């Protein structure tokens, strides 16, 4: 069996935009959602900036009990899952629950809750032998983040294969690739797939401080995330989620569903080089791109837009620029490439899925999101990065890539479904 896999529903919780409509509006405006951290006092940290979601659980349909019970990452997952279910128009109650699966990506799972619990149980770190008598009944769900997939399954009534994929910063692409595989091989007909992370917690901020991966531009948070700019100095940590309804293409067509696009290619590779370092040549990312294009049976010239990893670290942006040149050849210089991390930061495991949402909406509305804050291009980053302003363009084939600690490099191709007409702008 080799079935095609369509995206028929999208839900997004992103900094500066909750819900796919306001998320897309933010991307088109070129505004940035990065700011001084408000979730805790960041004054002792090297990087004091983040792209935070202004999230009031009750406003987005969570009950007070859900708000208490669920870690922030799980709350994002639940809210975006509900949105994508509605968007898909699928009557989940009429489906065979055994044929609905779940694949959730997350790099750091319930970190926020874990750290808060730790502070209580350890008397702010003073007790090595933490005091278990104060533990929250929800600690275990933060301890083992497969709870995220369980929550999503509960929202959709899914009883097919369910799991969490945690490949660090490529989790958001890898969880979609996994879901794609399960539908393609016939293990499920519908997958709730996507990724969530809520890492704006002192321990996460501190560990990226230590590796000096995050931007220290604390004086001007709005311009701190500057992918491909000569003056870039690190990524800006962020949070968010994007969830999708993925559906076997013929099933989607048969019910007259709106198809945002088809996941026509996906591949992941490891650089086997270093847990955080990247060789400049981008060799393994290039291989992931080539492999995903081969799976989609597309020549590089067919790619209309590249959604870059574009984290804004010195080494990443060179690494992937070289990967694009290696994999796409001369076409790399012609195709628009942009990084939405310039606007909404880097939400670790979630961002790969949020970027796929941007790609699908770009195909939908005929536009390429810009790279904000790109004023002085790095001479070594010499592609068309769509600086500052969104650009209208018909997108039939889109490439999105991700790169992460551990050496993981992933690439995904979305293509327009020939049988689908474009929906009027929402």
């Amino acid at each position: 069996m080799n079935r095609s896999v369509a995206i028929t529903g999208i839900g997004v919780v992103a900094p500066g935009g909750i819900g796919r409509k306001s998320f897309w509006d933010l991307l088109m405006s070129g505004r940035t959602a990065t700011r001084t951290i408000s979730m805790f006092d960041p004054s002792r940290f090297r990087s004091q900036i983040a792209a935070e979601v202004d999230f009031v659980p009750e406003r987005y349909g969570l009950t007070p009990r859900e708000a208490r019970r669920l870690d922030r990452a799980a709350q994002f997952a639940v809210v975006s899952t509900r949105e994508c279910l509605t968007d898909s128009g699928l009557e989940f109650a009429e489906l065979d629950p055994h044929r609905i699966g779940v694949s959730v990506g997350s790099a750091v799972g319930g970190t926020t809750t874990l750290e808060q619990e730790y502070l209580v149980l350890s008397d702010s770190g003073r007790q090595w032998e933490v005091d278990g008598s104060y533990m929250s009944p929800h600690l275990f769900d933060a301890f083992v983040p497969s709870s995220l997939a369980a929550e999503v399954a509960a929202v959709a009534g899914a009883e097919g294969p369910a799991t969490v994929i945690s490949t660090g910063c490529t989790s958001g692409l890898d969880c979609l690739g996994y879901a794609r595989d399960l539908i393609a091989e016939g293990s499920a007909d519908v997958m709730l797939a996507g990724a969530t992370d809520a890492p704006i917690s002192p321990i996460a901020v501190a560990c990226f401080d230590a590796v000096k991966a995050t931007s220290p531009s604390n004086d001007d948070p709005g311009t701190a995330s500057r992918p491909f700019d000569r003056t870039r100095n690190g990524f800006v940590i962020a949070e968010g989620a994007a969830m999708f309804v993925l559906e076997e293409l013929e099933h989607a067509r048969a019910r007259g569903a709106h198809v945002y696009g088809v996941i026509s290619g996906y591949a992941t590779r490891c650089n086997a080089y270093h847990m955080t370092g990247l060789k400049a040549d981008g060799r393994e990312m290039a291989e992931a791109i080539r492999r995903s294009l081969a799976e989609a049976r597309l020549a590089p010239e067919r790619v209309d837009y590249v959604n870059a990893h574009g984290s804004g670290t010195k080494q990443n942006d060179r690494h992937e620029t070289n990967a694009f040149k290696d994999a796409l050849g001369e076409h790399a210089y012609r195709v628009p490439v942009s990084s939405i991390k310039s606007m909404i930061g880097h939400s670790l495991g979630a961002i790969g899925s949020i970027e796929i949402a941007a790609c699908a909406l770009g195909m939908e509305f005929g536009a390429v999101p810009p790279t904000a804050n790109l004023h002085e291009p790095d001479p070594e980053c010499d592609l068309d990065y769509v600086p500052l302003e969104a650009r209208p363009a018909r997108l039939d084939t889109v490439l999105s890539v991700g790169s992460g600690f551990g050496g993981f490099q992933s690439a995904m191709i979305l293509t327009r479904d020939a049988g689908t007409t474009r929906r009027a702008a929402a």
Partner: protein
Amino acid sequence: MPRMTLDDLKLILDECAGEDERTDFGSDLLDTSFTDLGYDSLALLETAATTTLRFGVELADEAVTDAETPRQFLDLVNTALVKVA
């Protein structure tokens, strides 16, 4: 005034990057590059962070990156120590 010696540096390197018999602390250790000694950028970041805490000096990120050998690293630290004093 405290000074950082080669022995201090060796101690911190072992602590931050791990002991490894492959490391040959020969006589020209001072001028062998960290890369040739088997230390990657993370090991040096960790070494710099520990040095900062232990010796009470501030080391600029770029200066740490530019220090390619133990001698250059010690010079950097000891120059900063003079300034502190």
